[in-house]
């Protein structure tokens, strides 16, 4: 499997090479720098080069027309031709022939080289005495007029040099177009009469159509205003030049120029066309290579990225393992160093090798390619190494930055809030001072654009940091708010409240988590308490069920014995005790269940609107006769209007029943029991008062505790749970229950909010 990566690397190298080849071919093309548009011209004839070449050749043709008149007689070079007239004295002139001038030139050592350029030195700039000839007429420049009188004075050396160079021009053209056959054909004819005409051609006796059939052509006549041509760009000066050359005063002339595009002769056109086609082909190949190379590189690079750090690479060589474990920064530095060394080595060795194989003008390019390749290889390796670390998830863990940050965090993390504030604020202060100093320094020292920009950057950074600090402070305050909110909720009893710790950072997160722990603990404790309370209630209920069954038998059999009508008063007394105690046990078990349910809140309430006054009347009705048994007078003070409250009638009745029963059992005989209802602000206050028969040597709060009662009362029939049940039930229904004991005065109040 590891082979796959090696293959990918190999393929990548090959494609890289392809890119290099493509770039090289394109870069070294003669058309480099012309953009890509030039290859749109399919052939050389469509290119600007061809047009330029043709234009310069047409200029040469016109020059030739001029020179032919000057240097030729009947189509032959005539050395005895008069060429220059000078004034050598006042009123006298002297004429020079071509031959004379050339011989003088030769005597000065001037000659024409292969290029038909004048060689062998240059005439010195002579002083005034030497410029002894005033040139009157030049055959090759008949229209010459001196701009200044001094300009027309020339030395004989200068004149001969001048004539020789013009002759060279003539020769060059003659050599190129007349003497040697070329691909450029031309014909210029000026006609006065049938006999009187001037013809300049290197392609004699051909018709216009024959010219046109050669390929690229240009045909101008004196009559037509337009130029008949299939060239992509027609030289603009053709018509004026042609007219200028016209020796006759008519429009009867024409000019035909054509380039034979089959290039039968190996001249400049042929070479240019050949080179053009070749370069175009190279350029296209280069482009294809480049495109293929880039595509291939991208594909293989993608493969390499995919394969890097893949599971099959899990068991690399020990060296690679060590490499991979290096912190990313160190790896990068190593790669930098490696590329530096490689560049140095290549400069010392490989550049020399390049110099051996490439011509001087290509050295720079070769070196550049090598440098780019070295940088590319090290760069890709570095990126792949980082990628591998990233994929195996150790990039951040191993990085020096991470380690540094962690070390730095040590200074912050495990400190108290105060210390942290001190440290961070000091840092903030230092930064601010430095920034302000830098800012003022810049402000007072420089006032050019760069320093302004720098100042702007500094100010921006400054602002950014201050904003960041504000943000941190705000975040902190927000976190404190959240924590405050949570604490408020928890202290209000909402123990299920949780802080979303995801939004917290650092030490505040720890704080929030701890608060969450506290609330969880409280919640668990509370649930545990509710559960145990419920368990207790269930236990009491179940035990009471179990007690009731044997109790049933006891009560029934005691009753059965009683029915036996036993006369013995002792046994009757025993039976009395048995009956009383078994009845007491019965009430006790029932009250026990009720008390445990009421105190654990394990009751279903059916809250409705209740008239408290009506309820008191009803209760009074229930107890009036019972009270009369113990000679208790019930004195009730009740309002005339209905007093509505929200409560469960059955349980509120149980409250009152227990209170009335309490009075019935413990009030002193022949005393009065006071019952009244008062409206007190938003509450309805029920009060029952009586004088206790026995001293109440007990605190009021103890009375409401289960099973707690005044000592003496223990022998009576009650369970001792009545008051406790009344209190629990009242509170369950949202009321308030209070007891007052003042000497023998026993007073109980039940308060409920008045319903609107």
């Amino acid at each position, binding site marked *: 499997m590891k082979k796959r990566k090696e293959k990918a690397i190999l393929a990548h190298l090959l494609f890289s090479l392809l890119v290099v080849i493509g770039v090289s071919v394109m870069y070294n093309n003669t058309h480099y720098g012309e953009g890509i548009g030039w290859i749109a011209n399919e052939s050389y004839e469509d290119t600007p080069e061809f047009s330029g070449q043709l234009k310069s050749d047409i200029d040469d043709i016109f020059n030739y027309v001029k020179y032919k008149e000057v240097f030729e007689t009947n189509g032959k070079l005539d050395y005895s031709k008069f060429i220059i007239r000078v004034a050598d004295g006042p009123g006298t002139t002297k004429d020079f022939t071509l031959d004379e001038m050339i011989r003088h030139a030769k005597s000065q050592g001037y000659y024409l080289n292969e290029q038909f350029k004048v060689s062998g030195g240059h005439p010195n700039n002579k002083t005034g005495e030497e410029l002894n000839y005033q040139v009157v007429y030049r055959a090759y420049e008949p229209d010459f007029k001196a701009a200044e009188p001094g300009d027309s004075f020339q030395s004989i050396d200068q004149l001969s040099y001048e004539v020789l160079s013009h002759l060279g021009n003539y020769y060059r053209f003659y050599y190129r177009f007349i003497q040697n056959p070329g691909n450029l054909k031309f014909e210029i004819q000026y006609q006065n009469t049938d006999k009187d005409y001037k013809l300049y051609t290197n392609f004699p006796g051909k018709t216009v159509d024959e010219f046109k059939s050669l390929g690229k052509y240009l045909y101008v006549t004196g009559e037509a205003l337009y130029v008949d041509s299939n060239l992509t760009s027609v030289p603009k000066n053709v018509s004026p030049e042609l007219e200028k050359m016209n020796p006759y005063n008519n429009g009867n002339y024409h000019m035909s120029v054509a380039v034979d595009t089959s290039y039968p002769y190996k001249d400049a056109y042929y070479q240019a066309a050949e080179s053009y086609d070749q370069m175009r082909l190279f350029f296209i190949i280069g482009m294809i290579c480049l495109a293929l190379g880039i595509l291939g590189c991208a594909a293989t690079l993608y493969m390499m990225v995919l394969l890097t750090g893949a599971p099959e690479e899990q068991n690399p060589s020990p060296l690679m393992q060590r490499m991979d474990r290096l912190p990313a920064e160190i790896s990068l530095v190593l790669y930098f160093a490696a590329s530096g060394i490689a560049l140095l080595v290549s400069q010392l060795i490989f550049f020399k090798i390049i110099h051996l194989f490439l011509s001087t003008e290509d050295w720079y390019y070769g070196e550049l390619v090598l440098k780019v390749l070295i940088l590319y290889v090290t760069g890709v390796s570095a990126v792949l190494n980082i990628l591998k670390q990233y994929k195996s998830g150790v990039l951040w863990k191993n990085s020096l930055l991470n380690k540094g940050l962690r070390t730095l965090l040590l200074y912050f993390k495990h400190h108290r809030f105060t210390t942290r504030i001190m440290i961070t604020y000091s840092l903030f202060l230092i930064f601010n001072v430095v920034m302000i100093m830098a800012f003022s320094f810049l402000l007072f020292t420089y006032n050019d654009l760069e320093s302004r920009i720098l100042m702007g950057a500094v100010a921006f950074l400054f602002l950014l940091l201050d904003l960041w600090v504000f943000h941190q402070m705000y975040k902190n305050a927000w976190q404190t708010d959240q924590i405050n909110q949570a604490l408020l909720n928890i202290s209000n009893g909402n123990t299920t409240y949780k802080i979303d710790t995801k939004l917290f950072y650092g030490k505040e997160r720890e704080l929030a988590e701890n608060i969450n722990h506290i609330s969880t603990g409280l919640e668990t404790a509370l649930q545990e308490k509710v559960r145990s309370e419920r368990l207790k209630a269930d236990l009491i209920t179940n035990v009471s069920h179990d007690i009731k069954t044997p109790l049933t038998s006891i009560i029934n059999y005691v009753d059965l014995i009683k029915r036996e009508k036993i006369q013995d008063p002792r046994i009757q007394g025993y039976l009395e005790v048995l009956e009383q105690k078994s009845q007491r046990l019965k009430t006790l078990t029932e009250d026990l269940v009720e008390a445990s349910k009421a105190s654990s809140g394990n009751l279903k309430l059916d809250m409705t609107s209740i008239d408290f006054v009506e309820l008191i009347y009803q209760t009074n*009705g229930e107890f009036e006769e019972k009270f009369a048994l113990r000679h208790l007078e019930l004195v009730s003070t009740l309002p005339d209007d209905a007093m509505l409250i929200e409560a469960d009638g059955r349980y509120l009745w149980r409250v009152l029943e227990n209170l009335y029963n309490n009075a019935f059992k413990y009030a002193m005989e022949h005393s009065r029991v006071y019952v009244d209802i008062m409206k007190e602000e938003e509450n309805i206050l029920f009060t029952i008062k009586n004088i206790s028969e026995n001293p109440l040597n007990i605190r009021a709060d103890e009375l409401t505790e289960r099973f707690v009662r005044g000592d003496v009362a223990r022998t009576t029939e009650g369970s001792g749970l009545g008051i406790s049940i009344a209190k629990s039930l009242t509170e369950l229904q949202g009321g308030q229950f209070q007891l007052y004991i003042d000497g023998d005065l026993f007073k109980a109040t039940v308060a409920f909010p008045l319903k609107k």
Partner: protein
Amino acid sequence: MQNILVCDDDKQIVEAIDIYLTGEGFHVIKAYDGFEALELLEENEVDLMILDVMMPGLDGIRTTLKVRETSSIPIIILSAKSEDTDKILGLNIGADDYITKPFNPLELVARVKSQMRRYTQLGNMNQQPAGQIYKCGGLAINDDNKEVTVDDEIIKLTPIEYNILLLLVKNEGKVFSIDEIYEQIWNEEAIGADNTVAVHIRHIREKIEINPREPRYLKVVWGVGYKIEKQ
């Protein structure tokens, strides 16, 4: 002789009930769990069942359900469970009465007799003497001869008690407040009403109910008033 099936896993309780009911002239068939009760029910002609709830094997609730599949005899549940929810459950699944342990033997006998009378009466309802008769379950008021009966037993009431009961029975299910009752019966405005009405109600309850603390007909709606429960 009427047969009563008594079923409880506590033998002594069954024995005691046997003694009381035999004393009242009933024949008692004893069972000690639900399955046995169902078997005996098939074998004998039973007029009434007394069932404990918490029994091994088939419990009282399931036994009642089974019995109700085939029979409509009165069933009295006798249970140590005294919560309202237990009572409601028992009555809802088809029991006719619910007595909590420990029970008063006299109350049990009274309730048995009451159920028995109602059960046997069902056939000859139409033979009631003609006249203005208001009925509510076992409670009947003959307005022609001012006679009140509960399960065919004549109850003696004072004229005011009779009027109050008649008012409530005529408006069965409707709740009357003390003031309303006072105004209707005494025909004068109730100014500063006292405990009179409540005391009268209590007296009526003591006369017509088997257990005045857990009234069957005349119910106290605490804090609102009084009503005759729709049967």
